């Protein structure tokens, strides 16, 4: 099961720089980044090529960071690509708590990453419905 790194950050200038500084010093590559903020503070979510090492490095620097299990699905980079996945999720009554997407190869494939309550259960449902879920190895090496 793939992981992303979630980081607690106060909403102020320099919040990203502090994280990227640690990651670049530790030669960790960021595949995707997103910020959900709630006024004074927020959570920065990072998809890293080496999430465990990245999370440890951040923690060592005194940053509140944690590994969070996610689901990543691969889909066609074409109109309706995400709609196929979203329909299945909706049919099965699955609520997506937090999500982001990115393209791997233009007009060919894209990745949709999201958090749900019961990761294993949802992954199984998706596989049964023919959706391609990406393994951690594949995802980190993209």
């Amino acid at each position, binding site marked *: 099961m793939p992981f992303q790194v979630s980081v607690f950050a*106060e909403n102020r200038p320099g919040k990203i720089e502090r994280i990227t500084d640690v990651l670049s010093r530790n030669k960790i590559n960021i595949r995707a980044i997103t910020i959900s903020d709630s006024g*004074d*503070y927020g*959570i920065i979510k990072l998809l890293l090529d080496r999430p465990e090492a990245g999370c440890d490095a951040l923690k060592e620097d*005194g*940053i*509140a*960071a*944690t590994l*969070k299990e996610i689901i990543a699905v691969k889909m066609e980079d074409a109109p309706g690509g995400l709609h196929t996945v979203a329909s299945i999720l909706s049919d099965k009554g699955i609520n997506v708590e937090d999500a982001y997407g990115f393209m791997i190869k233009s007009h060919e494939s894209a990745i949709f990453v999201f958090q749900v309550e019961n990761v294993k259960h949802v992954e199984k449902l998706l596989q049964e419905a023919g959706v391609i879920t990406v393994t951690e190895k594949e995802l980190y090496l993209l």
Partner: protein
Amino acid sequence: MWNKDIEAIDRKDLEALQLKRLKKALELASGTPFYGKVFRDNKVDVSKITTLEHLKDLPFTVKNDLRLSYPDGMMAVPKSDVVRMHASSGTTGKSTVIFYSQKDIHEWADLVARSMVATGTTRDDIFQNMMGYGLFTGGLGLHYGAERLGCMVIPSSTGNTLRQIQLMEDFFTTVIHITPSYALHLAEEIHKQGVDPRDLPVKKAYLGAEPYSEATRDKIEEQWGIDAYNSYGMSEMNGPGVAFECTNKAGMHLWEDFYITEVINPETGEVLPDGEEGELVLTHINREAMPIFRYRTRDLTRIIPEPCSCGRVHRRIERIKGRTDDMFIIGGVNIFPSQIESVLMNIPEVGNNYQIVLDREENLDRIIIKVELYSKMFHGDLKDLEKLRKKIVEELRALIVVNPRIELHEPGSLPASVGKAVRVVDNRKL
């Protein structure tokens, strides 16, 4: 016990000793410019003081009296007999200076050794003293006491965290003397090096120099896997070693052969019966270079009249609830920072540092409480953080009328974990 004859003395004999020492101290003090005038102005005839009750005829001495007698208006022996001085930081005005003769230093060291023995420390212990040396009494006070007891003393003083850790590891420190905020900070730093502080040989800590709550002590004991002892002292009364917990950890034995204890109503000055809470007033009867009578400590506590099972007859005082001058009023309610700290430190998601900011908006008091998130309790969900914020508000609601605004901060981002932490910032223009 370090000195059974004194620590388990009969109370009658103790009172006789107190009276004898009080009379001697009064005689010495009457020769000083400050007390000479006080005694004349209040028509106190020192020779007529024949019972401890007569102490009540003397007026209180306050901090400002010490400032006004700067530099040596309270010195009671010839200057050549003085071997040391200490001074308070003087952040709020002229510093207050305390003098000690050779005998005073000797007796003080003995008192500190007595205090340390009450917590189970022996000459076999390795004592790392992470308190400031110099004009401040904390460092040298415990240093001399530990040497008197026969411990090996590591006078590492404050700061230089990496070296502190190395000294602890290389010399197998068993007892530390440390401010509570630095103890928490140091535990974090030790963790960062991949070491669990619980695995170090340290088994005991003396906490001092800044106020802290019982919950903070619990946290320090938990993080370090040690016993942490409360103690009480102030430079006006020598420094550390005025009162100390024994291994029962149920109040601090106030060494009554050195100090006469009173608890008063801070508003009226009325002496309260044992057991009632009020301001602690102390008379130093065993310091020849500088006796001080009925000193208003500004610390709030109560005397625990019940005897302690350890066998020491010296009465205990409860942990200091707050200082009469630390207290702030918000929305018309008196609050001590220690009360807020108790609530915060009982919430596991809250980190070690916090700050209370008081403000006034449109004539209404506002209280902002900044807390750090405890890294290990962060699970990556925004909604959990919102829940935490609500939880803190809920827990504080019983204490403060005004709805507090809670700010969550990154670990390590709030100021002053080293040295004396500034916990309250009052921005209200009154």
